[in-house]
């Protein structure tokens, strides 16, 4: 426009094309495709038969066929058990860590993080090594101590109780994080007011503290229940040998020969509905006013002196950490370094045989590692970029209805991994879009799964960046895209790095959705671990598992050094 700039030394701005509108349209299309396509195919299969005729017979089967009905009952019972046990583990531990002067609190937090990062299927395998009725290390020790017969055993992990325990070891951190955050924010004056009136510690706890953290406790428990309900790895490893199915393993079995995709789709629908219901309830609980007003911090909480109870507290915390982290890790290390499972690790029995096997002999692993690494990097990079732009559009209201994009990006949080796997399989294994058997379908799955957490990261980050920072660059001549690239993204760079790290970790530990989508050419490390478990090769599993863990911890350590890291962000990692 204005051409009259006589006497000025700076030329008028010549703005390049603003790509934002087409880009946003493309992004909207992508998110719609990611989320709605698999769900539509899932529903379509659920309500049709092999000849594509509408039918409700698939659902009728769920009610009439006991082999389909039973997994639901068992899965729900198991999940409730996991919820209860996670609570039992996490609540006292969170209280001890947040509210008492117990020594070594930061060590305990570090161990809880370790349990958080451990893929539950790996934990289940470790517990196989520890507590299988015959070969289990703990049972062997038990027989040795009491000089018992070879078939006597103390523990049997291949039971519903064993399964509940093995899952809870890796879901209790969800409860722990929420409860300890809530405890950190309980205003200490409320507690002091009660104490001053002469109430003993336990009365104060019961009347004041527990009611205040109740919403967090409930919300955390619901997350644990959701995790258990939608988990594939641990039940597949522990329930199948025990001879029973949960919903996820049943869905998987319906894809074994002869495949029954319509039935699998139908059985996925109630699971999806359970998940939506749980997420919805959890949101409602956390969104309640009473809980958010707790956020206003008033002084550091007063720590309770444990005195002679310290030993008891450490006994509890120690036992918990022993069971959830230390013993399983030791079991994996020992198995990785000895020739047969259960062999004591000594100078004589030490061997690198399994490492040699995994890295040099077993051809599938190098391919799987390459695939996992490639997909991890691609998903993390693409996912971070997409989440950044989506959060930008949604929170800055760039286009009318931009908030819908944000909504779409958070939908997958309520889609269980295996259900997504079914949907993607149905959507991309037909002749229209033949992606099944390629890495693309895995990339799509990973992006969908990781999108909610990544989006939420950025969406809260955007609230802390003043809009005027972007506007200042636009009025000086930057298009939306230039402003995003030169101002917003650099300001959010530590959020971006953190998001990248967590997507990467989430990707390398994902199993539930992948189990239906990988083929011989597109194996991943997590799937290889599951395959090796079927063939009983625990040594190789331990090597691969330890490798996964080391990579995860290395990345977490890097991310932890960033200023914006917060424990709560791990919440959306899945098993």
């Amino acid at each position: 426009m204005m051409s009259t700039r006589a006497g000025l030394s700076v030329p008028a701005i010549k703005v390049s094309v603003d790509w934002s509108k087409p880009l946003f349209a493309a992004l909207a299309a992508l998110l719609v495709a990611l989320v709605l396509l698999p769900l539509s195919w899932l529903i379509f299969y659920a309500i049709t038969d092999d000849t594509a005729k509408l039918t409700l017979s698939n659902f009728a089967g769920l009610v009439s066929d006991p082999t389909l009905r039973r997994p639901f009952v068992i899965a729900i019972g198991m999940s409730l058990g996991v919820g209860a046990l996670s609570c039992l583990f996490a609540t006292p531990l969170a209280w001890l860590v947040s509210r008492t002067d117990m020594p070594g609190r930061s060590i305990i937090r570090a161990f809880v993080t370790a349990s958080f990062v451990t893929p539950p299927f790996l934990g289940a395998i470790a517990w196989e090594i520890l507590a299988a009725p015959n070969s289990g290390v703990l049972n062997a020790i038990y027989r040795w101590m009491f000089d018992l017969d070879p078939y006597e055993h103390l523990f049997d992990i291949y039971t519903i109780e064993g399964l509940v325990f093995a899952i809870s070891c890796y879901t209790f951190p969800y409860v722990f994080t929420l409860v300890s955050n809530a405890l950190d924010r309980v205003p200490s004056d409320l507690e002091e007011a009660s104490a001053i009136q002469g109430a003993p510690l336990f009365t104060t706890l019961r009347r004041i503290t527990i009611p205040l953290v109740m919403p967090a406790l409930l919300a955390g428990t619901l997350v644990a229940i959701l995790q258990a309900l939608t988990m594939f790895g641990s039940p597949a490893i522990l329930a199948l040998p025990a001879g029973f199915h949960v919903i996820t393993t049943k869905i998987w079995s319906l894809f074994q020969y002869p495949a029954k995709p319509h039935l699998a789709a139908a059985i996925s629908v109630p699971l999806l509905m359970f998940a939506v219901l749980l997420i919805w309830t959890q949101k409602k609980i956390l969104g309640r006013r009473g809980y958010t007003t707790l956020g206003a911090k008033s002084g550091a909480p007063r720590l309770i002196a444990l005195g002679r109870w310290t030993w008891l507290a450490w006994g509890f915390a120690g036992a918990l950490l022993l069971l959830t982290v230390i013993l399983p890790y030791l079991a994996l290390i020992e198995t990785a370094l000895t020739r047969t499972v259960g062999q004591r690790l000594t100078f004589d029995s030490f061997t690198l045989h399994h490492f040699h096997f995994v890295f040099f002999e077993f051809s599938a692993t190098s391919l799987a590692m390459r695939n996992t690494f490639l997909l991890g990097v691609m998903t993390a990079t693409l996912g971070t970029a997409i989440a950044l732009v989506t959060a930008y559009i949604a929170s800055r209201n760039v286009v009318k209805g931009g908030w819908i994009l944000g909504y779409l990006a958070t939908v997958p949080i309520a889609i269980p991994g295996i259900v997504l796997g079914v949907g993607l399989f149905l959507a991309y294994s037909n002749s229209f879009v033949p992606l099944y058997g390629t890495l693309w379908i895995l990339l799509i799955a990973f992006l969908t799964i990781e999108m909610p957490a990544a989006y939420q990261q950025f969406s809260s980050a955007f609230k802390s960046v003043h809009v005027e920072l972007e506007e200042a660059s636009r009025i000086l001549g930057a298009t939306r895209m230039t402003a995003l690239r030169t101002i917003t993204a650099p300001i959010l760079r530590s959020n971006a790095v953190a998001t990248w790290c967590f997507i990467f970790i989430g990707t390398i530990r994902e199993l539930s959705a992948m189990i239906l989508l990988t083929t011989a050419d597109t194996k991943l490390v997590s799937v290889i671990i599951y395959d090796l478990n079927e063939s009983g090769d625990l040594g190789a599993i331990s090597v691969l598992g330890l490798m996964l863990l080391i990579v995860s911890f290395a990345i977490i350590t890097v991310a932890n050094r960033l200023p914006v890291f917060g424990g709560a962000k791990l919440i959306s990692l899945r098993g």
Partner: protein
Amino acid sequence: MSFLELSGLSKRYGPLTVVNNVSLSVERGHVVCLLGPSGCGKTTTLRMIAGFADPNDGEIRVDGKVISAPSGSLPPERRNMSMIFQSYALWPHMTVRENVAYGLQLRKLDKRKIQELVDNILATAKLSNLAERYPGELSGGQQQRVSLARALVVEPNILLLDEPLSNLDSNLREEMRFEIRRLHDQYRYTTIYVTHDQAEAMTTADVVVIMNGGSVEQVGSPEDIYERPISEFVARFMGGSNILRGRALDHRTVDCGGVKLVCANEAPQKDDQVAVSIRQHTITIATQRPEEPTNWAEGVVVRNVYLGANRDYVIELASGERIRVVTSTSSPVENGRTVWCHLPPEHCRILTS
């Protein structure tokens, strides 16, 4: 034709009209102040000029070309304007030099030229020794100057300022007020300046626009606005005036509770209910009854405060209304005395309400 023209501009958010039919002409090189109470739509008007918001009605023209209209607007990056934000909006990840150079880099100037222009503006804004610092390491006043330098270095056609001084303490604010005016006189950019501080408007503006509830109340020079308010709102907002209510006896005379006031301007209609404003410092006090009662009001001194430079009286009139009078400090009148206040006709102004 003026350089910048707003005509019939309106902006609605849902049912709420936050800018209502605003028209304004700005000459090239002038400083125009938008002045008004909080929430009256100043920022919204400025954001429409900048292109961050589209009007629902009306249009904005620069040099005769339409840049904003309900049917579509030029995006902000194509307007060759600069804006100074209330929060300064300095980019925390860039040094002072990088902040200032940003706009020039977007204009694809070569490195040497950029360096030269940035050095010049930094010197003008007295920032040369702070060039390598980050915004987080600067004081409020320094940040303010960086944001000025960043806006000026691109030689904008129009400079927009949104309450640029509201975050500063009062000493610094006064200093920066003259600084902005000095820089303006040096570069002569057409400037729109938003503030709710009338002293700021008085010292910086060529033209003051008083806004109220989304509409323009009065446009005029600072002197116009101060000496000749046209509405009760403007008179009250500018402060320093007494406002008396009454009935128009004829076009120039108003009866305010028994006091007959001849005024400088004309009332719209005989027998109308009107208000009359008179500045506190134009009133004089006499202790003797005047011969001619017109424009004289009888009252009792209820308070008198010595303010050093002058004396501040509160006088209760026979009608029960209280007025304030500011006079010189000589010949004090003690509380309880009956006095006669002279309200000179040339300073009595009839207001529309």
